[in-house]
């Protein structure tokens, strides 16, 4: 045995898993090749998403865990409880906002409708004519790469971190690029979009996203601003879509998303997609045109067919545990994912129903092998 638990991948999900196991007194070896992943490039909006009950249960539970940790997070994690405003531009979106309010309230998530004038008062930079917004006060933002470091550091001596490329997994064993095999009680695969190189049977597709950040203009916006059409864009299964999503960075920068594209693995910033995304942003924040952008970049979300992560033991590989497929919500849902996985491993009751995230929904359990005479 090289450790009690081996975690492949030190993004936010792998780090949250390592943290959880270390807290339960296990020695954890975290392997990461440092090839980089979504955690380093994403937006870090901790947001209650309600496209289906399982997504809402996991995001709500996870946001609560982030809130508990918030006072002890390092300052460079840049956690801010800025809240989200879901913006309604027309009557249907206003109805959608009201519907969202009911859904979130039913789960005990604090939220309230702002009418047009309350919205203008809260965010004067937004264009005139918006009908209102749903304010979700408990949503926050976080600088995820530093939060991942913080999670690993909390494990103290229980967590060992090594820079290593894993080239093969086989149940509770992993093979390193130099050919050596390492063994543990359990291996946790948290390799993000790269996990399917090690397990080609995983139903994971890359969804490319563009982001852009401005120079520092403190105080222009106060909340994470998202158009209500966002969920439709986020869950489209084909084509390229954009939606307005703007985040106030603690530095005063304005951080803009979002775009979604399938079937590209080219990290290049694409002018036409970025232009569409920015036109959308200008439609909501006309003054943006006077501000300077300083960087734009792209990242890849690991999308599953139902947009929910795979959390649990691989049905065909005893000893291999999956924590992958977090799509555009993995910074939010990392803490809850780690708790669910640990509960499985320790055969404890979980805080939320773990069944919607079980890998078996996509990976068939193998039939007993037939013996030929």
């Amino acid at each position, binding site marked *: 045995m090289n450790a009690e638990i081996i975690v492949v991948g030190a993004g936010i999900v792998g780090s949250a898993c390592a943290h959880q196991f270390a807290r339960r007194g296990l020695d954890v070896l975290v392997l990461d090749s440092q090839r980089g992943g979504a955690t380093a490039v994403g937006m870090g909006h901790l947001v209650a998403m309600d496209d289906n009950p399982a997504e809402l249960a996991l995001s709500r539970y996870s946001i609560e865990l982030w809130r508990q940790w918030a006072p002890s997070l390092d300052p460079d994690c840049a956690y801010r409880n800025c809240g989200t405003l879901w913006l309604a531009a027309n009557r249907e979106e206003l109805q959608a906002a009201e519907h969202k309010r009911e859904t979130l309230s039913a789960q005990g998530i604090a939220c309230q409708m702002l009418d047009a004038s309350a919205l203008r008062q809260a965010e004067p930079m937004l264009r005139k004519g918006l009908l209102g917004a749903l304010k979700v006060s408990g949503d926050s933002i976080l600088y995820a790469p530093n939060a991942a470091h913080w999670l690993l550091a909390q494990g103290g001596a229980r967590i060992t971190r090594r820079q290593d490329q894993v080239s093969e997994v086989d149940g509770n064993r992993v093979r390193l690029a130099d050919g050596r095999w390492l063994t543990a009680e359990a291996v946790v695969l948290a390799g993000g979009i790269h996990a399917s190189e090690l397990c080609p049977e995983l139903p994971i597709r890359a969804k490319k996203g563009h982001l852009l950040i401005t*120079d*520092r*203009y403190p105080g222009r916006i106060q909340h994470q601003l998202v158009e209500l059409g966002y969920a439709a864009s986020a869950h489209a299964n084909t084509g390229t879509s954009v939606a307005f999503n703007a985040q106030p960075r603690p*530095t005063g920068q304005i951080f803009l998303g979002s775009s979604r594209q399938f079937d590209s693995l080219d990290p290049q910033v694409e002018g036409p997609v970025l232009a569409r995304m920015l036109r959308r942003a200008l439609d909501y924040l006309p003054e943006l045109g*006077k*501000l*300077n952008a*300083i*960087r734009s970049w792209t990242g890849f979300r690991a999308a599953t067919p139902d947009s929910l992560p795979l959390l649990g033991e691989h049905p065909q590989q005893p000893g291999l545990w999956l924590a992958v497929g977090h799509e555009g919500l993995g910074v939010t849902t990392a803490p809850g994912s780690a708790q669910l996985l640990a509960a499985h491993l320790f055969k404890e009751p979980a805080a939320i129903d773990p069944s919607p995230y079980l890998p078996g929904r996509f990976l068939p359990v193998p039939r007993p092998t037939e013996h030929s005479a």
Partner: protein
Amino acid sequence: MIELILDGLALRVAAGSTVAAALYLGGDGSSRTSVGDQRRAPVCGMGICQECRVSIDGQRRLACQTLCQPGMCVETHA
């Protein structure tokens, strides 16, 4: 020659000078102070690195991509 104001002081530069050149001629060479409280200065000189962001007449501009104009007001501590 063109006269502009750099951090409150008058500065004369040759016509056709960039603001980046003016920063070196008239100041400490820096364009701004970073969030980490470090002074920052032009690096690439071709509008890519974004290090030379500076306040010009109240607007954030790139010093290396902006030519000095008469009466221009450049602020590196804004």
